């Protein structure tokens, strides 16, 4: 093997190195406590549940805070958490939740319906972070405290997916938050690094840009299922994928995320490490501008869909991905398989469509915009150059920073011909994906195609207010078929979510509703 | 007058200089002696090899590009060329000291006079296996400055070189040279960079010091007048050779070598101001391909055939008067006829 060759080359140095090499660590046991180290690339500069979320932020939020409900398992399901049970009115407008009675915040205050009301109001007023999920359907006036342990939401309009949103609305301690209010900011400044939660972990050490350490709440109101549960964890920032790999290999980290597909395969074979591999819900697609330029022509769009080498997507992930077979992600509630209609590489057809469009030999250039630094998107761009080259279409790769890319995609006139988009459904309901094709989504990152089909929009609007799911399903079947036919984008793939664990880390439960690197640390325990 | 044995003897010193165009033969067999209490002036045009000779004595020439090809420099019967750097360090300043041309550039600009002098004094002491405290060294420095007539030496000793005038700086340099109480003082154009009035002061100072301490002096200058003011004997150099070596009186009364005569004629003289000043035609020859035979022959009005083939040696024409010129071949003792003494050049 190659590594042997290296060793031979530097055999002279080995003596010195043995003398000086640092010891490699395993799980940190500090004062008899089991502190796990999670090596991640993305920082969490603002952990206020009302202000922001992304995967790293939400992982910490999930540890520090509780919500009424919680997503677990794959396929994902919503389980009771702070709410023991709940009921909805038949028109899905009035929702009543009954809270557990023993929940308490980290400072000992009891968690009551008042706190729930405060938390929802705060998010709605601040209008940041998860606010968009309910901004259209819920106003502060619609939240009513029935008694200390009962809360009622009255929505402006029927909204069937309401309960699937709630796991992302965390409950904060109003007293703690408001004690730190400054200039009427509802404690925003303090909450960036503050802890006003009731979750299984509390804040310990916060070093921005370096690490965040959390410690387990010994008397967590829900208790701990496994006596070997971790006593805390360190969320360590390791910015380079290769460094992450070394860290898990050396045992400096107990869990890592986001290393390259090649590296995952490599560490999976190493002793003392296992790699989880579960299908995710995040879809990759190449959105095309449906209203401007060459891609306005559906024939060109179809030609591109037929020219694309879908297998290379799987290769990019070393086989750890599946191809989409519908505009909706496989595994999402409401998805149907359109195996026979979905586009697959067929150069013959692609050329036919090029002819139909009036460009039998291509001869034009399209822009492919992707996020600066996103490895996989870059690779897909390279595949695109290769594939479309065969149709005589040149592809210009334009990496942009995320805000610049979104800014360009926000208007029809500036939206690029092709744009690489990863999208994860935030909650488990077909509406969340269907709505991405609605006119109201134009200009958002998943709406950069500026998809234009009023019929689909109408169906989407109708479906989301129906309470009965089977009834809704008929609409979504139609929607999926219509979107596929319009080929607004190259429907790509869903990659597998993977983490590398040291073998003594147990209890990991995969749930595709969580974002890329996000792990629920509550059930994790250690078994040596 | 002065019959003490010689303490410094330079014998047939040949020094070459490697340049990219070839090897420059800058010193071509130069010989002279210096006795105790003797004062010898070395005179010649710029670039004739005077300074090289002086630096060679103290082992200060950079090697490479300089190469000492042959010769000896005997000091108290030891050949300085054979000495190690360490041994040379003991001799420098202690036994042979040097005063330089431009007092500005020869003083380190970033150290105070005090520091530089104390270093020198303590260095000498160390070579003599003694230790001198900084305080004592400072006192000695002040007394030396006093000896060279620097006003307020106690106040001025802490100053930096640039705070002194040119003449004062030269005095400082002389004081430093005297610090080791040397036997021989080599003064390399000590007054060239100074104003005429200051020049006279410095020359007078050197003269006084010689009287007082009975140093032997090797004074190097392009100016016959300067040499005449201090020295008893004089050596005239031309293109790496000594062409005439005699007493100061004889050189003025009876210059023998055509070059010496030319040199004397080119001195402006009030008494002769009606006559035209006469220079020597031509210029210093190329050192890389020097003229064969006598190096002066291309410029010489009396050149003969032999001059272009054979190099004349320095030979007595009368007592204490040695000249290297074939014009005086007849007065040579037979033992020093060129055919016998030197081989013709190839």
């Amino acid at each position: 093997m190659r590594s042997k060759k290296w060793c031979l080359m530097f055999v002279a140095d080995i003596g010195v190195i043995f003398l000086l090499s640092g010891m490699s660590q395993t799980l940190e046991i500090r004062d008899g406590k089991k502190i796990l180290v999670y090596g991640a690339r993305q920082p969490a500069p603002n952990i206020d549940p009302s202000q922001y979320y992304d995967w790293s932020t939400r992982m910490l939020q999930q540890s520090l805070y509780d919500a009424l409900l919680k997503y677990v398992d794959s396929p994902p399901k919503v389980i009771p958490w702070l709410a023991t049970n709940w009921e909805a009115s038949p028109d899905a407008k009035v929702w009543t939740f009954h809270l557990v009675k023993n929940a308490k915040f980290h400072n000992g205050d009891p968690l009551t319906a008042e706190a729930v009301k405060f938390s929802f109001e705060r998010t709605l007023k601040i209008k940041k972070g998860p606010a968009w999920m309910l901004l259209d359907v819920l106003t502060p006036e619609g939240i009513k405290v029935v008694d200390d342990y009962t809360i009622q939401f009255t929505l402006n309009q029927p909204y069937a997916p309401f309960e699937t949103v709630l796991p992302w609305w965390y409950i904060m301690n109003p007293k703690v938050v408001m004690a730190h209010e400054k200039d009427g900011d509802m404690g925003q400044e303090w909450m960036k690094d503050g802890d006003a939660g009731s979750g299984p972990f509390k804040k310990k050490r916060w070093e921005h840009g370096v690490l965040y350490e959390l410690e387990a709440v010994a008397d967590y109101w829900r208790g701990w299922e496994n006596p070997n549960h971790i006593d805390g964890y360190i969320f360590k920032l390791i910015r380079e994928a290769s460094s992450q790999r070394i860290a898990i290999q050396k045992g400096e980290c107990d869990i890592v995320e986001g290393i390259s597909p090649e590296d995952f395969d490599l560490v999976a074979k190493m002793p003392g490490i296992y790699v989880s591999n579960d299908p995710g819900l995040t879809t990759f697609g190449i959105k095309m501008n449906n209203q401007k330029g060459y891609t306005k022509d559906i024939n060109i769009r179809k030609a591109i869909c037929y020219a694309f080498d879908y297998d290379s997507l799987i290769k990019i992930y070393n086989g750890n991905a599946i191809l989409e077979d519908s505009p909706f992600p496989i595994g999402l509630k409401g998805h149907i398989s359109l195996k026979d209609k979905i586009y697959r590489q067929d150069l013959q057809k692609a050329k036919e469509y090029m002819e139909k469009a009036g460009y039998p030999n291509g001869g034009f250039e399209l822009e492919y915009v992707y996020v600066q630094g996103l490895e996989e998107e870059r690779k897909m761009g390279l595949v695109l150059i290769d594939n479309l080259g065969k149709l005589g279409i040149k592809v210009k790769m334009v990496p942009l920073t995320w805000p610049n890319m979104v800014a360009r995609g926000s208007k029809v006139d500036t939206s690029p011909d092709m744009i690489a988009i990863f999208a994860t459904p935030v909650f488990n309901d077909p509406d969340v994906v269907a709505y991405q094709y609605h006119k109201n989504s134009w200009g958002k990152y998943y709406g950069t195609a500026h998809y234009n089909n009023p019929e689909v929009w109408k169906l989407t609007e109708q479906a989301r207010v129906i309470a009965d799911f089977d009834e809704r399903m008929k609409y979504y079947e139609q929607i999926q078929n219509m979107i596929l036919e319009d080929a607004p984008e190259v429907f790509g793939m869903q990659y597998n979510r993977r983490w590398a664990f040291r073998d003594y880390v147990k209890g990991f439960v995969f749930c595709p509703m969580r974002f890329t690197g996000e792990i629920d640390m509550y059930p994790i325990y250690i078994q040596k | 007058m002065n019959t003490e044995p010689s303490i410094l003897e330079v014998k047939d010193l040949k020094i070459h200089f490697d340049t990219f165009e070839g090897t420059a033969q800058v010193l071509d067999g130069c010989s002279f002696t210096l006795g105790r209490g003797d004062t010898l002036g070395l005179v010649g045009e710029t670039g004739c090899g005077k300074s090289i000779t002086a630096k060679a004595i103290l082992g200060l020439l950079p090697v490479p590009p300089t190469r000492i090809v042959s010769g000896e420099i005997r000091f108290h019967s030891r050949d300085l060329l054979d000495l190690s750097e360490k041994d040379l360090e003991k001799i420098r300043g202690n036994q042979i000291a040097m005063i330089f041309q431009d007092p500005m550039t020869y003083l380190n600009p970033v150290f105070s006079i005090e520091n530089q002098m104390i270093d020198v004094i303590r260095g000498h002491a160390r070579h003599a296996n003694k230790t001198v405290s900084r305080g004592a060294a400072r006192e000695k420095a002040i007394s030396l400055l006093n000896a060279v007539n620097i006003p307020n030496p106690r106040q001025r000793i802490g100053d930096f070189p640039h705070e002194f005038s040119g003449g004062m700086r030269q005095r400082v340099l002389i004081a430093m040279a005297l610090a080791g109480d040397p036997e021989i003082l080599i003064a390399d154009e000590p007054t060239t960079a100074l104003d005429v009035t200051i020049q006279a002061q410095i020359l007078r100072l050197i003269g006084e010091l010689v009287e007082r301490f009975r140093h032997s002096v090797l004074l190097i200058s392009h100016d016959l007048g300067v040499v005449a003011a201090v020295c008893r004997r004089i050596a005239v150099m031309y293109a790496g050779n000594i062409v005439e070596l005699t007493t100061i009186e004889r050189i003025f009364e009876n210059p023998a070598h055509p070059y010496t005569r030319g040199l004397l004629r080119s001195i402006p003289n009030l008494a002769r101001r009606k006559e035209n000043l006469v220079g020597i035609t031509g210029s210093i020859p190329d050192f890389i391909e020097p003229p064969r035979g006598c190096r002066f022959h291309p410029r010489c009005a009396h050149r003969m055939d032999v001059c272009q083939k054979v190099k004349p040696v320095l030979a007595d024409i009368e007592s204490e008067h040695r000249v290297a010129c074939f014009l005086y071949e007849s007065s040579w003792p037979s033992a020093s006829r060129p055919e016998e003494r030197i081989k013709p050049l190839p």
Partner: protein
Amino acid sequence: MKRYIIKRLLLIFLTLFGLITVVFLISRVAPGDPARLAAGPDATEEMVEVMRKEFGLDRPLIVQYLSYFKGLASGNLGRSIRTRHNVIDDLVQFFPATFELTVFSLLLAVVLAIPLGVLCAVYRDRFLDHAARVFSVSGMALPMFWLALMLQLFLALKFDFLPLGGRLGLLTEPPTKITHLYLVDSLLTGNWAVFKDALRHILLPAFVLCFPALASIIRVNRAEMLEVLSRDFIVSARAHGISKIRTIGQYALKNALIPTMTMIGLRYGWMLGGTILVETVFDWPGIGLYAVQSAVYSDFQPIIGVTLLIGINFMVANLIIDLIYGILDPRVRYE
């Protein structure tokens, strides 16, 4: 002297003013919409508007510009969209790491380069001189980031000899914060384990960062030494019997150090620039990494902040160098 310093400081202020203006203008050319980033991927237009207001991006350019200076007077450098913290807080947090790295690296360079430069001058055209010349020419040609990667490959990945990156081991508790420089703090508190750990971590990045500086300081020092060694006062020092070692090590070196100091001052600034690359490779939590991440996110307040901070550092360093000049060279007069 005092007047000179005041004059120089005024000039620094003037230059900084120009610098801020230039960077500010550049930053507003950006086509991106930073508020959208701050609002998050799913935000509605309304939510983006909230952010835009919060970051003051809804106001006219000139107002933003003026209010930047207003904020500057009270130490407010605006807010980072990416980290959501005040830029000044971020800088206070990240700068000590960069400062520790650059100063350590510079010291390393000076300690290695000056003796080497002297030796090369003394042994001119000998083996050491040639070796050092090859080293210094290649030192300036080596891409710093590549050297860093290769050293990581050998010293950290293949042989586990030094840590791969970071300022401290994963689980090492940072020392009590006094100066915020880990090496200094751990020494002050007598915490040897942390000191050793911090030292192990700083070695590779410091070495990489000092490499070009090492090369150029050797060069300059060698050239200056050669120049000084050929000067008359060296000859006279030697003629006065001062030993060779003393002549070189004291008489010549002090003269040669004066121009070398200029190079050292310049190099301090370039090193600060180099931290962009080195901190990226070694995951060193300093302002270089902060600047790169901000640039990639089109997050402009931090970039202006970093520019300002590095500008101040650079110019103050040069001022200090000029003042050291005065100590080394008595001929210098400040006016």
